[in-house]
């Protein structure tokens, strides 16, 4: 079986600055990989390359065996992606927006309606489905973005800061949702909130200045610090880099 997600010496330079520096790793189905790191560490840039928004300076990646450089359309069909800040068209309603995404993803007729209704249900946005997205609270907007990324039931799900800026209740909803899908998919979430790792991740990877500086299960990472404290590990590895 091919790996759900394979990153192979991925590098991205912006001018003289190296945002992502020779990053390689493999993630499998059933894994929830937490991508940790300070702001500007290269988390988002890595994700943007995997989903085909940015092209790498060198290296490559593949999603379910589809190479991001040779076969970008097939990659885009396979992954679900929530960009940072969950952008959506403000003039549309969640219902209309999700129908548009479902159509672009090739669904028609009753299957399209079923899928739209299914993701509206699991992300719990029924109450606001018919009002313009620009009138929604941050929490609802985030869930609309999440709904959009799930519409084609993707094997690989890439979520850029899915809980950033949400209140504790909203965070809980999103985390429960991620956990409920964990066994079926390969999920990568980026975050700079360390409690998130304990809450949902099966594996954590710390990235600093474009390089992977730590990789392991949350427990393994914690054991690197005397106090068993993830915060301390985070500070230790990201300050040296």
């Amino acid at each position, binding site marked *: 079986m091919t790996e759900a997600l394979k990153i192979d010496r991925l590098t991205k330079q912006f001018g003289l600055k190296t945002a992502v520096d020779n990053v390689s790793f493999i993630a499998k189905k059933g894994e929830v990989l937490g991508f940790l790191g300070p702001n500007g560490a290269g988390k988002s840039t890595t994700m943007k390359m995997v989903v085909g*928004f940015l092209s790498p300076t060198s290296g490559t990646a593949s999603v379910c065996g589809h190479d991001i450089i040779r076969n970008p*359309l097939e990659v*885009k069909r396979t992954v679900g992606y929530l*960009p940072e800040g969950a952008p959506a*068209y403000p003039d549309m309603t969640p219902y209309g927006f999700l129908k548009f*995404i479902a159509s*672009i993803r090739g669904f028609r007729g009753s299957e399209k309606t079923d899928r739209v209704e299914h993701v509206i249900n699991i992300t719990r946005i029924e109450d606001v489905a018919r009002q313009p997205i620009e009138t929604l609270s941050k929490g609802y907007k985030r869930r609309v*973005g999440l709904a959009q990324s799930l519409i084609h039931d993707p094997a690989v799900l890439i979520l850029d800061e899915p809980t950033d800026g949400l209140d504790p209740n909203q965070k809980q909803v999103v985390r429960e949702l991620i956990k409920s899908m964990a066994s079926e998919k390969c999920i990568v979430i980026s975050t700079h909130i360390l409690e998130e790792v304990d809450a949902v991740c099966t594996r954590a990877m710390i990235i600093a200045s474009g390089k992977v500086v730590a990789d392991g299960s949350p427990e393994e990472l914690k054991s690197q610090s005397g106090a068993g404290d993830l915060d301390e590990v985070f500070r230790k590895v990201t300050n040296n880099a």
Partner: protein
Amino acid sequence: MRYLERSRIMRNVGLIFIREFQAYFSTPLAYIFIVIFLMLAGLLTFFMGSYLERDQADLVPFFEFHPWLYLFLVPALSMRLWAEERKQGTIELFLTLPITMGHAVVGKFLAAWTFSITALCLTFPFWITVNYLGKPDNGVIFASYLGSALMAGSYLAIGSMLSATTKNQIIAFVLTTAVCFLFTLAGSSVVLDFFSAWAPSEFVQAVGNFGFLPHFQSIQRGVIDLRDLFFFASIIVISLTANALIIDWRKAT
């Protein structure tokens, strides 16, 4: 397989087209644009163009003002196409959907063009009036409408391209007006006299060939010359190609 691929392209372009076209009507922009376009077209034709005093059954004074009307109305349609997408961050969502850059650029452009053609078609009362008052050459009028639509498409393609260079819609508007102004005037005596004083005549001719006005005026006389159609078509194709390249280059910034 080939057929499948083609139907997928049509479908994606169609879906993007519909979303963009609806987006015009989700704000007052569409209605304001249509009302202002029709009012100005009427005012210019009747007052500045002396439509009635001329006592001729044609629509020459009506079409004569189209380039100038488009000059500041069309950038208002094109400015949001990519600048808004970049500002809202939706470009990241849009371009990671399973579509190609070509689908995206063409779908958006066609939506804007269809909208401007809709506004143009709503000027049909002029056509009815002139047919009621006299016996115009309807072939010439048809050709003029075609020329006007092509010119609007060229302005829009340039506007779409420039909208991709910025996140700021106002900047997109001003840039488009400025660039379109140059293209409009390039064939006029004002610009040509400026160059002919010192530049070689081949150069002057080349500049003159890029002007929208001579091409529009020749179509407006009722002569649908392939060269004029080709001119506007190439402006559109070149601008949209540049549009795709600019997005690829600027999307991350």
